[in-house]
């Protein structure tokens, strides 16, 4: 059977890729590209979006997604598909600290409702909103695979487990 599996690279590569991102960012993206076979630079799209998003203060813009597309020789639509499919990409501005609270079953039966309520009150926002000072975004997420430490949330790259109101106070006080 003649199955074919080709990258979605149907676009003409752009010439001046150096102009798209800073040299640091390019070095990081290139490190990811080097993991994949020749011609499969689109495999680095997830990592590239993550890097570009972090560099832009936590969210992606259409312009940035277009740049990622140009850098990886992808059609912009293929990058938008990826950016809109995965939950860790943000296409609207978020606060400096994104608090991702798990409310799935193991967390729920260990009081994640109370954790959400406490955070909503403390930060003056509802789930899905960003505080007026731009410091915090409160986001409900699905199981983060740390059910042994329920209830839990993630801020940045770090997991915080066995949460209580007191612990939340000290965690938020400790954020830069």
């Amino acid at each position, binding site marked *: 059977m003649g199955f074919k599996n080709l990258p979605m690279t149907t676009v003409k590569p752009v010439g001046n890729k150096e102009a798209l991102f800073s040299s640091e960012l390019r070095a990081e993206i290139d490190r990811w590209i080097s993991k994949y076979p020749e011609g499969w630079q689109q495999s680095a799209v997830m990592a590239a979006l993550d890097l570009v998003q972090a560099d832009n203060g936590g969210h992606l813009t259409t312009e940035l997604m277009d740049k990622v597309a140009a850098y990886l020789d992808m059609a912009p639509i293929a990058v938008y598909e990826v950016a809109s*499919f995965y939950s860790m990409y943000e296409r609207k501005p978020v606060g400096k600290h994104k608090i*991702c609270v798990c409310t799935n079953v193991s967390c729920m039966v260990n009081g994640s409702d109370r954790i959400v309520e406490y955070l909503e009150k403390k930060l003056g926002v509802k789930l899905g909103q960003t505080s007026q000072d731009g410091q915090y975004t409160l986001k409900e997420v699905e199981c983060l695979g740390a059910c042994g430490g329920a209830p839990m949330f993630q801020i940045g790259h770090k997991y915080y487990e066995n949460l209580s109101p007191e612990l939340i106070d000290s965690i938020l006080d400790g954020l830069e």
Partner: protein
Amino acid sequence: MVNEVCFRNMDLDRSWLLEQYRSRGGYDVLARILQERTPPGEIVDIVKASGLRGRGGAGFPTGLKWSFISHNAPGQKYVVCNSDEGEPGTFKDRDILRYNPHQLIEGMVIAGYAIGATVGYNYIRGEFWEPYERFEEALAEARSAGFLGKDILGSGFDFELHSHLGAGAYICGEETALLESIEGKKGQPRYKPPFPAHFGLYGCPTIINNTESLASIPVILEKGAEWFKNLGVENSGGAKLFSISGNINNPGVFEIPMGTPFSTLLEMAGGMKNGRKIKAVIPGGSSAPVIPGEQMMELTMDYDAIAKAGSMLGSGAVIVLDDSNCMVKVLERMSYFYHEESCGQCTPCREGTGWLYRVVNRIESGRGRPEDLALLDDMTTKIAGRTICALGDAAAMPVQGMLRHFRSEFEYHIEHKRCLVG
């Protein structure tokens, strides 16, 4: 007997370091295989004989999966590890990545040797940043010690291994969605056949196994197929990691022999919190149908025992619920999850998961109708088995399990517009 396979070094200080792994015989099996030039077919036969079944949830025999790839077939082949741990209730692979990453690396190199692959990828869910960093450090250590890369230990065998980070999508735990994701696409499952063994990553023959399955390999080859098989029971070879959480005193990951009584596992996990009564157990991740607590207390933790009770062992994720829980609320949360995570490719799942959630939600919020339970029964049969991947089944099974065992609680909710509990 606990902690004999994936957790064999858990008692060591900073167990994730190469020197610590080496102190327990780590990489000795790989070195022996490469030195003796063990025929690859022999390795596949040992894995087959060990009774190891896929630890990610499907329970497919690992050795059989490997045997679908011909070692001598020309062209590039790949070994892919599924560390996209996302089944609600499961948190064991995170511990392998954090505390025993070298055993996974050794398992993947051996898998590469067995099927004739020179490149591997470990797909780690994007939220697992700390485990990813730990795994990356281990890769660097393994490379500089000559266990990875070109001409491993002077044997002429090459194997390069890379991490790939996900970005938040339960569906990427489905093996073909995961392959799509590595290829830089949205993670939508592929039609099977062709199976990954023939048409996998980048269209090349690929084996894809769960983290725990691959990390079990070095110990199986060190101690033998019989030893591993005899740890467990008939049809469920070996020991397994169980993630146990919920209303219990000491939640965590425990490596115990297959066939261990559930009551023993519960005891290891400190028993029920606040002295409450056990009401129900979800024995294999949230996709597994619920089992009433009393019945569960009589069961053993192995594939056949749990299947006979009408559920599945899945990934070994055990969620224990006490009698303070409203089962309608628990099901509402689970149904929301599947609705949220459906990839949208197949209509029965995309639309059906939303329907399931909305109907359970209206029962939970006191707007249920007398005909709703029959409607739910009917809907589950129109989703399960009618989709490309198993997410549709996974959404239907918890609903079926809840209605089978706790139907009266749902009826009470509909009739009285409130909980039977609390």
